[in-house]
């Protein structure tokens, strides 16, 4: 270093010291805000424990966990997409498509182009279902990255495509049908509705998905690329990160997780149909936003989204226990989302200087 940058004088140094101290407080606020969703969940649960007699029971809590698992798993994938600044409206449709294909393959012989493959092994049926989700997601990413169209529009279109494909696969009928040659395997029913060491399996699976996703986002090149693309696309490009590759991978992950969620849901409901999980894409987005991820990308994380899914689940359950009519429940849930976003915007404005 040359002599030019001589030591700063005392006034300069003290100014810098105060800046650090001041932004140190901002930093603390930042941490507090990050814990916000979890705090809200705890407060909500504490309130319901006192306000109702049957909220804090093992049965009820397992029930909530089981019901929230689907949205939680989808929300984990949605978090990846939203972190890049995108949005995936097709997740529920992918879940339904994967669930339908898996359920059909589990219960009926596969006949392709007149060739009868017989009943596939259950593991293969599930693997194909997952693969379909992965490919459907990658297709989303490819369309968006190659043709440079807005994520919202692209996935709005593919959402309809995937629903249509699910209708084709199921002929518009629930699966298993009356003439099913095989029932859904017990393992799948167990994953959807069973328990392991007293905990609902589906909820444990959601946590596992969340942990793996957390690791990927925090410790891998992909995770960093996702935050960079969402935080500043141009900076990512200049730094040699392939935006196309990142986008395709991100949507593929979202598709895969949607497929996992869909197949778990088949186990819980003991049935699949092409129109299942309708509207759940919006709940997954709400979970991500409630969990503190910036809708414009670059900030947030997957653990928040799981907390967000839990908040939505607990809220619905609590309103039920409080005997609030389902109509009012919808209104209340909508308000929560709007209020959270308002709060989030206010927080961001107060964080950013000038």
């Amino acid at each position, binding site marked *: *270093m*040359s*002599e*030019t*940058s*001589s030591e*700063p*004088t005392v*006034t*300069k140094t003290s*100014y*810098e010291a*105060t*800046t*650090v101290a*001041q*932004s140190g*407080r*901002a*930093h603390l*606020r930042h941490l507090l805000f990050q814990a916000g969703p979890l705090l809200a969940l705890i407060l909500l649960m504490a309130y319901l424990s006192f306000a109702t007699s049957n909220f804090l029971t093992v049965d009820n809590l397992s029930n909530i966990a089981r019901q929230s698992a689907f949205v939680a798993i989808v929300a984990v994938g949605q978090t990846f997409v939203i972190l890049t600044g995108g949005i995936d409206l097709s997740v529920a449709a992918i879940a339904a498509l994967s669930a339908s294909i898996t359920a059909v393959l589990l219960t009926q012989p596969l006949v392709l182009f007149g060739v009868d493959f017989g009943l596939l092994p259950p593991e293969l049926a599930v693997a194909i279902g997952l693969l379909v989700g992965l490919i459907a997601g990658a297709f989303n990413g490819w369309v968006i990255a190659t043709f440079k169209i807005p994520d919202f529009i692209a996935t709005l279109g593919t959402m309809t495509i995937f629903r249509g494909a699910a209708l084709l696969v199921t002929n518009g009928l629930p699966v298993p049908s009356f003439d099913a040659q095989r029932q859904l395997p017990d393992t799948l029913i167990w994953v959807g509705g069973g328990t392991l060491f007293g905990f609902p399996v589906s909820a444990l699976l959601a946590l596992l998905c969340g942990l793996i996703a957390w690791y*990927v986002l925090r*410790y*891998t*090149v*992909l*995770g*960093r*690329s996702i*935050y*960079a693309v969402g*935080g*500043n696309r*141009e*900076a*990512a*490009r*200049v*730094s*040699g*990160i*392939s935006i196309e*590759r*990142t986008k395709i*991978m991100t949507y593929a992950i979202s598709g895969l997780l949607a497929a996992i969620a869909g197949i778990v849901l088949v186990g819980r409901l003991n049935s699949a149909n092409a129109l299942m999980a309708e509207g759940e894409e919006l709940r997954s987005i709400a979970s991500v936003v409630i969990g503190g991820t*910036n809708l414009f990308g*670059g*900030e947030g994380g997957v653990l928040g989204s799981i907390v967000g899914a839990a908040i939505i689940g607990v809220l619905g359950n609590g309103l039920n226990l409080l005997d609030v009519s389902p109509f009012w429940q919808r209104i209340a849930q909508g308000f929560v989302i709007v209020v959270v976003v308002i709060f989030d915007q206010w927080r961001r404005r*107060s*964080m*950013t*200087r*000038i």
Partner: protein
Amino acid sequence: MSEPEILLKLDQVEKRFPGVIALKSISMDLRAGEVQVLLGENGAGKSTLMKILAGEYRASAGTITVRGKEVSTLTPELAGELGIGLVHQELSLVPALSVTENIFLNRLPRDPLRRIDWRKAHDMARRALDALGVSIDPTVEVRRLEVAEQQLVEIARVLERGPRILLLDEPTSALSDGERLRLFDVIRRLKSRGVGMIYISHHLAEIPMIADRVTVLRDGVVVETLPAEEADEDTVVRMMVGRALDEQFPKQAAAIGAPALAVENLASGGSLKDISFTLRRGEILGIYGLMGAGQSELAPALFGLQSIKSGSIAVDGKAVRFSFSSDAIAAGLGLISRDRRQSLVPMQPVGPNLSLSWLSRRRLLAPLDLKREREESGRYVRELRVRPSSLTHQLMFFSGGNQQKVILARWMSSGAHVLIFDEPTRGIDVGAKAEVFALMSRLVNEGAAILMISSELNELIGMADRVLVLHGGRVSAELDRDQLSQENLLRHAS
């Protein structure tokens, strides 16, 4: 001679943001018919002060008196009524609307049937632009204009409202020298009409050209207001940074080595027609050109961000063809881009910003090297004296100069040996500029080759070993260090 009217008086104005005090106790006044240049390093609070005066921010404490009347809450509407006009530093135009619509946003002239009178509107817009001495088609969408033209539209928009108090926040940062001189003519005209102006600039050379008084801000307080005659460069720089700059351009002689980057007959984009040069290790090669001469497309073309129409590039003697920036990075290039905001992830701290270029060409599921990231970011923060010296604060809390240091550190850590500095000092303050130059000197001494694309004549003269002057997308002159002078550079550029 009677005292000129005091248009604006600030008394102990203060502005706090959560976690930061941007302004503490600002007291100053503005007289009718004067140009008061406001100086200060980045983060000194200049732009914040302007936004308070325009009603965009509310002061946390203090009083503002406009033409003898104290105004308690200044809103953008009230500021407009009081005749305060602000030319923003960042452009505040609507890109998808026409020039006319932007100039008369909300106030388009109507015909008797309350329909918009487009013919009249365009005529008025044309007159407003003519007053600035520019010919821009008022019917064109703003996004189709060059940045400099957009800036002129922004100025025209504010002037069209006939402000009594005009605030100009770095209006010349994107302007060519010719456009700048025309703007100064307009400023002098406004002066003679009694308009009071506060003019923010980083170009100290502009002070003798237009200033009546100079006010220096540092750390959110007024250091001093002094007459322009007393505001020589040394004095104001010392006031701005709180210390003297021993030397602004720490140019050291470095051994010139083997060719690092050889470009032949390069053409790319709309303005770059035919450029050839060889950049050697240990050398700083300057590129100068007026707006539109092709220099703005050189960096993207060299770095694989913009496709090449014809010509060839060789790095270290090997012919290369970059389709993506990752190819350029792999070949050892680094780019400090024109717009700093395009290089940073503002919501992340130093570490991830530093290591961003390491991710290039790696497998997506490969683990990050967090240990190296921690070590190197700690080391560079110390070595380059990044302030605040923190590895946890998000980069948006850093000043422009410190952000620039982080970008530099990124390329140093990725081992780039051919560095393209595209307008390396745009929008950063005097103190940080000197530090960036010192780093450039250090890098070439360590064997790097630097291509310095700049529109700042004195910086090129201070730092470059050679300068290529571009005109119309071609090299119009190659000047050695002993031939470098403002006159020479300008003559070959125009």
